[in-house]
């Protein structure tokens, strides 16, 4: 048991704790948007902790070399870059398919924006059509 092994074990433990929080958040939150909030953040940091933890843990053992750490760092960076994008895609798709916000929500600027955009498009479509008929 040396310092590297201990650090790695601690990181993996913290990571699994955040995994647990992520799963708990899925149960406790009221609607899809808030579930996405908790699950994305906790799962990303949880994976980061577990992966870097495994890399550092492997450094501390006899068979370990630096190859473990560089690979886990690469995977962690890929995950860090792609996880928020998938969350964004899912939440946007949920909104577009009409899933309502939780009734406790205080403000919805996006609906206002979509409605004003729709009105603009209708205005723009009306004028050329009238011109074509004449």
């Amino acid at each position, binding site marked *: 048991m040396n310092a590297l092994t201990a650090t790695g074990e601690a990181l993996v433990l913290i990571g699994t704790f*955040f995994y647990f*929080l992520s799963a*708990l*958040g899925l149960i*406790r*939150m*009221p609607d899809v*948007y*808030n579930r*996405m*909030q*908790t699950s*994305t*953040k*906790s799962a*990303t*940091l949880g994976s980061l902790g577990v992966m870097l933890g495994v890399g550092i843990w492997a450094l501390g053992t006899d068979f370990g*070399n*630096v*190859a473990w750490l*560089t*690979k886990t*760092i*690469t995977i962690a960076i890929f995950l*860090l*870059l792609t*996880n*928020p*994008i998938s*969350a*964004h895609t899912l*939440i*946007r798709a949920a*909104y577009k398919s009409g899933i309502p*916000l*939780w009734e*406790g*929500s*205080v*403000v*919805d*600027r*996006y*609906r206002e*924006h979509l409605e004003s955009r729709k009105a603009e498009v209708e205005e723009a479509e009306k004028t050329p059509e009238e011109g074509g008929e004449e």
Partner: protein
Amino acid sequence: MGEASKISRYLYTVIVLFLIWLFLTASLDPQELEVGLLLALIVGAFTYEIFTTSGLANLHPRRVVYAIAYVPYFLWAMIMANLDVAYRVLHPKRPINPGIVECKTVLKSDVGKLALANSITLTPGTITLDVDDDRYFIHWINVTDDSVEGASMNITAPFEKFLKVIFG
């Protein structure tokens, strides 16, 4: 920001690909390096057009320094985000006050906007719902200020000072 020359974009793509190869193989054996360089050159030739628009200008020392300084800042924000989530999930009363707010950004480049959206998603209580030009629609778990300026001050401003230098 105009587009860089083709050579510069190609070289930048090859450098990034070769760095990823180095990390994945984790060996400095000359044979591995040769194959890696060869593959980076081939893959780079196919992909540089969609990979980057500013080429080697991305490796300007000022940008690299800011990018390195951004990493701990971002990780710290992410840890705070998770403690915040932990508090909201474990608290018996479930103290959430969600809503969708609108923010403005000063960033110009597409990559910068992507990085800002990613950063917003991973930091306390916010997740990017949609981006339309320079307007961000953000689902905020605890709305304290629903005006455009107030939300920008709270959500986007802390990252913009870094991302403005890194991506322009």
